[in-house]
């Protein structure tokens, strides 16, 4: 958790990361741990299995800061992360969920 106010937070530029990962109980810990260890707040997380359930997709909503490139490289290094794609904050995945967070 960071100590920004809600308005400050909303003013920050956001990035949406899309990760393809192997689906097993430890993956979330591996991914999220990389962020928490660096005190890098993850604003939003979504995970669902894909297809047969062998793999999952993790969507992360994060603030853009100067460490983001390094974060992405660290995520790519994880053994269970198969691919990482970066999207702008305008990506629909979290926008569509907003109604559940009113």
């Amino acid at each position, binding site marked *: 958790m960071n100590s920004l106010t809600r308005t400050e937070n909303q003013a920050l530029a956001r990035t949406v990361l899309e990760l393809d990962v192997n689906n097993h*109980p*430890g993956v979330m810990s591996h991914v999220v741990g990389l962020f928490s260890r660096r005190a890098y707040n993850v604003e939003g997380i979504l995970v669902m299995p894909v297809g047969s359930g062998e793999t999952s997709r993790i969507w992360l909503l994060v603030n853009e800061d100067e460490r983001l490139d*390094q974060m992405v*490289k660290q995520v*790519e*290094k994880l*053994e269970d992360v198969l691919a990482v794609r970066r999207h702008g904050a305008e990506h629909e995945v979290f926008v569509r969920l907003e109604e559940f967070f009113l």
Partner: protein
Amino acid sequence: MSQKTPETLTGAQIVVRLLERQGVRTLAGIPGGAILPIYDALSKSTLIHHVLARHEQGGGFMAQGMARVTGVPAVCMASSGPGATNLLTAVADAKLDSIPLVAITGQVPRAMIGTDAFQEVDTYGLSIPITKHNFLVSSADQLLDIVPRAFRIAASGRPGPVLVDIPKDVQNQLVEVDEWPEPGCAELIPPPDVELVERAAAMINQAVKPILYLGGGVVHSGASKVAVGLAEKAGLPTVMTLMALGAMAVDHDLSLGMLGMHGARCTNLALDECDLLIAVGARFDDRATGKVAGFCPQAKIIHIDIDPSELDKIKTAHVGIAGDVQTVLEMLLPKIESPLREAWLARVASLKAAQPLRMPGVDDPRTPYGLIRAVADCLDDEATITTDVGQHQMWVAQAYPLRRPRQWLTSGGLGTMGFGMPAAIGAALAEPERTVVCFTGDGSILMNVQELVTAAEENVNVKIVLMNNSSLGLVFQQQTMFYGERIYASKFKGMPDFVRVAEGFGVPAIDLDAEIDPRAALAAALSTRGPMLIHVSIAMHEQVLPMVPPGAANKEMIGG
């Protein structure tokens, strides 16, 4: 894939067979309830020699010693709970120094996980941030995939530790095995970008004041020879990190020795003037760079590393090349012209002459530098050198004439007191023909002193040189220099009789203080096979100099 008739085996037997097939011949560990099935299976192995450590951290460092001298993943084992937590420091140490290690831990049975069962800890969760990868095995047949994969991951790319946590019931589970997997070995690395290599070559050819900066990756990659070749062809003064010592002989004409916090003045000053820094398998660690903004302020940077996440992490490179450093250097070499760099080489030579590493007392074996040189005088380059952590470590890094990659084993990234002696035992187990010398301190040795009995039991050729300054010397030095001489909790009041301690553990010992001819006594001790402790008193006020104050730029070093 091999093997025809199916066999029915337990998970534990599968683990042991996979280790045998992997080529593991020595491993270190301590048994306990949750790993007993594996130990039972291990007892029947005629190929694997199990070294019984006396603390799991000691076992972990023994495995590290084996891995550091061979470059091949080594194995340590521990039981669940306290066994696993004791092992973690050695695993974290391996992570920070990129050492290939496979740690196998027992876990409570699957049905009891999450119930706070006896000796249950979340080993998987605890080890996530300190391993390259980790596994919690959920069925015995998975072992056939996971164990070779653990070795593959540990050895591939940038090496590192892998932990495999195996619940007891998985160890006991029966599985039919009809085919054995191939042993896990290092994967091929994608080839480097040729165009970037061309650009790097052009930058080197055009540079007026270049410096080659070698890191531990050069040793891991087996690239020492080609790195020295590059330095010679391109006329590159060369600095090494703590981890790279030995990659280029320190007395090579082009060597400026170690850079950073305790580097020689000439070394840090040359870096301050360079116009091109060629970083190879190095990660711009803060002990090497000092304040980053003040590190090589005028230099363009070429950064070559096997781990893409190291590029641009601390310093943005003008050319960053991801790839195996040996491969990259081999591609680079033919593109290098041999420019005359008379002015720069002359400038570096004059810096070296004017501001060399000063080693007061180097002729007196009762001083730190003199002792280290006297030990070196008794040995050749075949000897392996390990250290603990503190002033003694830095003095050895500065003064020992290291000339061979993998000759030098030290805890660089984590800086773990207690590393030296068990790592030396591991090194001696892996390469019994060598003499292994461990330089340690009166503080550090006590952190894994129990492994003296392991040294005696295994009769390893390990010589422990104990530099006793009656203090946590490096702490004492920092309090003296930066905390107004307020010496607190760094001076020992009680002092064990280390000679008797060693003898009590079954290791012969001599006290150099009592010897009339310390050089002769050293020569005799170092040429006798088997473990030995050599105790030497060092004056408490001796300092490691120069020293860059923490947080300062390297050119602001004090002393020396």
